[in-house]
């Protein structure tokens, strides 16, 4: 059975869900631009806290924060490596034995990077959770963005669980032939390496077959494309897009000047 998706659309009846995908894309991209303008991680954390009303109004308060746990280990690594080895270090925060030290600049740099990651992850995830992939493709097509890009977005979301279940099948098949997948990290790494071959080959084989299926559906036909799902840019979408860009400029300038 296919395992639960990490990335998936959750159908809810909310204001945010009903917005045009393009509007949501504009909001998400604006936020991402904003966090690269800011010069302090505290500003980024404020932007991060702003997700709460968004999440609340899309009725997904809990779900939005779920993927943070996957980033936790990256944060730890970032803080350790940057704290110890940041190249532009000047101030020692804590002196460690053997000539090592934790540097203030390193920690500030690490918190900047992690706060950016945090914001991108949460806002990006909210976008994915509230946008039907079909609507996204349809909206992209209307903007005359290449439809192949749209298909890649949609099919990736659908095919990831296929690959996961394929992986599970291969693991089970290998286990039934006596593969040991428990033990120390080295042992586990060694156990999973032989699984990559069949997984990779299988995926390539499936990709070829799927390509033929796509050709059988006139995927490469050179004509004006239409969409089954209808997406309309309404008045409220236009208003929100304009507001978002105004907000981006105001916040961007203030944060830059502060």
């Amino acid at each position, binding site marked *: 059975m*296919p395992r639960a998706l990490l990335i998936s*659309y959750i159908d809810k009846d909310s204001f945010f869900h009903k917005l045009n995908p393009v509007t949501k894309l504009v909001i998400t991209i604006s936020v991402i631009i904003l966090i690269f303008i800011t010069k302090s991680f505290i500003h980024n954390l404020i932007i991060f806290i702003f997700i709460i009303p968004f999440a609340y109004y899309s009725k997904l308060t809990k779900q939005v924060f779920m993927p943070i746990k996957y980033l936790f280990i990256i944060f730890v690594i970032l803080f350790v490596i940057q704290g110890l080895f940041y190249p532009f270090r000047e101030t020692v925060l804590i002196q460690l034995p053997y000539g090592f030290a934790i540097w203030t600049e390193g920690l500030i740099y690490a918190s900047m990077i992690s706060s950016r990651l945090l914001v991108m992850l949460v806002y990006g995830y909210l976008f994915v959770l509230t946008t*039907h*992939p*079909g609507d996204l*493709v349809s909206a992209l097509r209307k903007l005359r963005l290449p439809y192949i890009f749209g*298909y890649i977005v*949609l*099919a990736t979301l*659908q*095919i990831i*669980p*296929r690959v996961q279940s394929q992986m599970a099948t291969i693991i089970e098949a290998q286990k039934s032939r006596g593969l040991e997948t428990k033990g120390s990290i080295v042992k586990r790494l060694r156990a999973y390496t032989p699984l990559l071959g069949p997984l990779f080959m299988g995926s390539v084989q*499936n990709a070829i*077959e*799927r*390509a*033929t*299926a*796509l*050709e*059988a*559906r*006139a*995927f*490469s*036909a*050179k*004509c*004006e*494309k*239409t*969409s*089954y*799902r*209808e997406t309309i840019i309404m008045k409220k979408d236009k208003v929100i897009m304009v507001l978002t860009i105004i907000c981006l400029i105001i916040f961007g300038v203030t944060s830059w000047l502060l």
Partner: protein
Amino acid sequence: MAIVEFKNFSWNYSGYRSKVLRNINLSINKGEFFGIIGGVGSGRTTFCSAIMGLVPHLYPGNIDGELIVDGLNTEKSSMSDLSTRVGLIMQSPDTQLTGAGMNVEEELSFGLENLGTPRKEMIKRVKKMIKLIGLESFKYRNPFELSGGQQQKVAIASVLIMQPEILVLDEPTAQLDPLGTTLVFNLIKKLARKGITIILNTQKIDYLAEFADRVAILNDNEIRKVGKTREVLTDINLLKKNRIISSDFTQLSNELINRKLYKGALCMTLNDAKEMISKVKRG
């Protein structure tokens, strides 16, 4: 009138020494139900992909002779032109689905979207097609979560919705359980009645015996025999020579004839067998 015409057609995948299809001369008529049987590795799948134009457009190799499909030379015309004329269904139900739709309705409409069909027409056709395949209660389900038989039905429907003249089925039931097989064959039977040209490559001779107008034996990369279904499928020696196991009914009738319990023609379908048994019973 011939709709598919192989004229001395040969195909050689690049990198392989021997030809996968050798000097094929064959014409399939419009509205015909045409069956293909043969041994493993005899080029049947390549035969099917040639009609769709996958050979030579998607796979590299060398072509000799020509193949005309609905007036188009497959070598010279594009895949997208061919895809509106020919629908191809292959073995694995999972990879037949494009992943472009979150539910059955969207999966079905994908081909029409690519052809630029207006939305109203699309909705109409999707509704009709869902009714035809009998998946009304599943139309909002993700196609990947359906059973194999249902997935294969969705795959067939999503090709059919583009209203091709010819439907090519390459072992559509090879990975299905008996129930799934029956579901798919019942759908194919329904389509055959509508007058679509169907080219079916299958190992399931019993089903072919019931539906097909003509059958070709493709073995060792060559066409060994083309003829009326009954003529081919009841020729036990011919089948044996081509390593094809004849239907249980044919074997049974052959055995009864050999034991001089029955005087008559060889059986091919279940109905034939029923008739035979009632005759044998009467003495």
